[in-house]
């Protein structure tokens, strides 16, 4: 987010950490906002759903980035916290008898979203508690246990049994409302005659904006500096007087809070929530996203999410789109389309491996290089 013309130097820390350091950054931001707002006018609705999936991944991986990239606490169970948020939100909207006036003004969902954030945050702190005693691989194991305990046991076996037979919670169209506007994926209700996808797109954009700003602000405050100190060397941080247990737990709470918001948002894009939306695969996927995007970088989060979602989308279009043709013209190749899901999985696995081997700094590093190149352009020195 920085572009400094040659010869501009800051004199103190405050100036260096400012949001708007140069007019160019302001212009860039305005341009970006314009581009994002006009995006729906340029594409059809399936790309809008791709866009809000990217936004969902950004929100969900935000907590992972905070824990791994800024606080050094490795988590492989983040889908559990997202699931807690999603179920909390869905159940509040579906089962709590809201007073009529709150339904009318559409407060139920926003209230449930905040609650979901807190619920997921506290759930996350619960599984972060061992971080006071263990670290490294043992901590990874406890976060993995969070996944196993939350999703296949608590949510599948107990929560899902509420009001039925272990089925997904259907969310009838028109249930999720913010103010007077129903924002479900399939709804055209509400006072605005815009498609559900577009409402969801803007809603997700708003949430991502808010959360990224909140995260950015946290990171340039005292808390963020403490987290980074813990990441770099926790023992050194402790000798410097940082309360490492407190800050670690705070990191777990904030990460869980973002996960809760993400889960709560995702509910609005679905017709139902089921435990299968939160399998271990997603926990790993989000760690994969930050590795692909770049550990310890907020832009990296955006790049990683966009990369993963778009690659999956293109693979899907290529394979599923060609499936009819394959089936008809080359029946002996038909098996490829039926096993698409496994090709996708294998490809994702290889992608992670090769990123880690050949691009260990992630996409954000390339972005940084590119930016530096243009910083000094046309007199840039490429280094070779």
């Amino acid at each position, binding site marked *: 987010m920085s572009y400094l013309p040659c010869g501009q130097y800051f004199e103190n820390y405050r100036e260096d950490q400012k949001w708007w350091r140069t007019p160019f950054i302001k212009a860039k931001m305005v341009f970006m906002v314009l581009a994002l707002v006009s995006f729906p006018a340029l594409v059809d609705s399936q790309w809008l759903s791709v866009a809000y999936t990217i936004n969902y991944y950004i929100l969900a991986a935000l907590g992972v980035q905070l824990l791994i990239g800024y606080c050094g606490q490795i988590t492989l169970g983040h889908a559990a916290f997202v699931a807690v948020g999603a179920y909390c939100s869905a159940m509040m909207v579906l089962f709590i008898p809201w007073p009529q006036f709150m339904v009318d003004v559409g407060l139920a969902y926003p209230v449930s979203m905040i609650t979901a954030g807190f619920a997921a945050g506290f759930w996350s702190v619960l599984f972060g508690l061992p971080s006071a005693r263990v670290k490294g691989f043992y901590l990874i194991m406890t976060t993995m246990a969070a996944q196993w305990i939350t999703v296949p046991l608590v949510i599948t076996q107990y929560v899902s049994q509420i009001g039925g*037979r272990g*089925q997904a919670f259907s969310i*009838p*169209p028109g249930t999720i409302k913010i103010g007077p506007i129903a924002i479900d994926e399939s709804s055209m209700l509400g006072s605005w005659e815009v498609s559900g996808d577009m409402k969801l797109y803007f809603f997700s954009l708003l949430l991502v904006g808010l959360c990224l700003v909140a995260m950015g602000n946290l990171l340039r405050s005292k808390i963020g500096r403490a987290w980074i100190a813990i990441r770099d060397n926790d023992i050194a941080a402790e000798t410097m007087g940082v309360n490492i247990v407190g800050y670690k737990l705070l990191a777990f709470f904030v990460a869980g809070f973002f996960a809760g918001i993400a889960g709560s948002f995702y509910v609005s894009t*679905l017709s139902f929530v089921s435990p299968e939306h939160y399998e271990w695969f997603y926990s790993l996927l989000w760690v994969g996203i930050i590795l692909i995007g770049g550990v310890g970088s907020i832009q990296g989060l955006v790049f990683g999410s966009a990369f993963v979602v778009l690659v999956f989308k293109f693979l899907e279009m290529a394979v599923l789109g*060609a499936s009819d043709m394959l089936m008809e013209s080359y029946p002996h190749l038909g098996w490829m389309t039926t*096993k698409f899901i496994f090709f996708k999985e294998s490809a994702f696995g290889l992608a992670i491996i090769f990123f880690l081997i050949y691009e260990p700094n992630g996409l954000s590093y390339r972005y940084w290089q590119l930016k530096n190149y243009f910083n000094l352009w046309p007199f840039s020195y490429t280094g070779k």
Partner: protein
Amino acid sequence: MKRILLVCFGIMLVFCSNAFSADEIKVGSINDLTGATSDVGKDAALGIREAFTYVNDSGGINGKRVKLILQDYGYRIPEAHTLYKRFRSQDKVNILLQWGTGDTEALSPTVNKDKMVTISDSLSGHLCDPAKTPYNFIYSTDYSTNARAALTAWYEEVWKKSDKWKKAREAGQKPKLACFYMFAAPYCSAPIKAIKDQAALLGIDVLKDQDVSLTALDAKSQVLGAKGEGANIIWHGNTTMSVATAVKDAYALQLEADHIMNNWGFDKNLVRMTGPAGEGVIGCASCAFLGDDVPYMDKVIEYTQKVNPAVSLEKRDIRTVQAWVKVSLACAGLQRADKAGKLDGPGIKASLESLRDWYPFDKENALGRPPTTITSTDHRPSPVSLLYTIKDGKITFFTKINMKEKFPDKWQSWLGW
């Protein structure tokens, strides 16, 4: 990089330019080829493709060709949602064929709002109440009726007659029922309430349920649990693979109980996998088994060889026949709706609800399916349950029960269980 982009672009062009002809009826089908129920799902998917090929070969639907779009969803509810959105918005299908109970029930509110008629392989009784799910249809006797029928048949034919239970019977002991199923899978839990109700009706004690996963490779502790409580009869609510596991483990641990199972857990594969352990189990079936002597079976077998010659007939099973029943019901709905000129959701719904004593392809006893009657107040296709058993390593007909005739005063109240 450029080349990859070009290839992607080329592929996109190919499927964007798929010529759209007006005289085409589109059918979307969500199937499980790779997931937890793929043991029965693959055969069914092949059958659907073959049945539609037959429909097109024999003149289509009032002369219109059917275009089948069949996709795998791996028994994962989220994938079903993605596929449904695609079918609805991009492909604009006329009718939807679904597979699992979980996804069919989860999508039900959306489907009903979109007025999309769906016919599901999930025969869950919960989808049969038009007051709640007007656009959901099933093609065969529902799970709850099947479960009630199987338990009744066992009680009347085995418990009351066989030598095996003579001692217990004469000692005045009540039979004990244990249910083996995956708690978290809606398919498995769908008929549980009904079978327990039926047990109470017949005077059978109900033991603690045992959780057996759909992909279980080991059911020892569950079998031991049932053995400890002295179960006489076990209801298996899963699909073939895990039913086979449980039956084998019951045999290995010498559990002296009889087994009854739902229609997705009973087929040729079960016979092959259980061997001696499977002797005497009783299972529900939706229609005749592949190769039975009923009308249209020759067509089924002919098309298995014509469309999928690579899959040997040995590996095909009753699922193919079930798929033909499903497809023929879909086509019956489409045909009548098309004749009336209303090929949309409400039109197809109305035409399906006008079926009275209907047989597949309008031929009596075709595919061994009892007559189907669907009304606008009751979507249960039939009160008749077909029961088969394994005798000397062969699937043999056991009995046929009409639950409506047997319990005329209860039948209406069982709607939507």
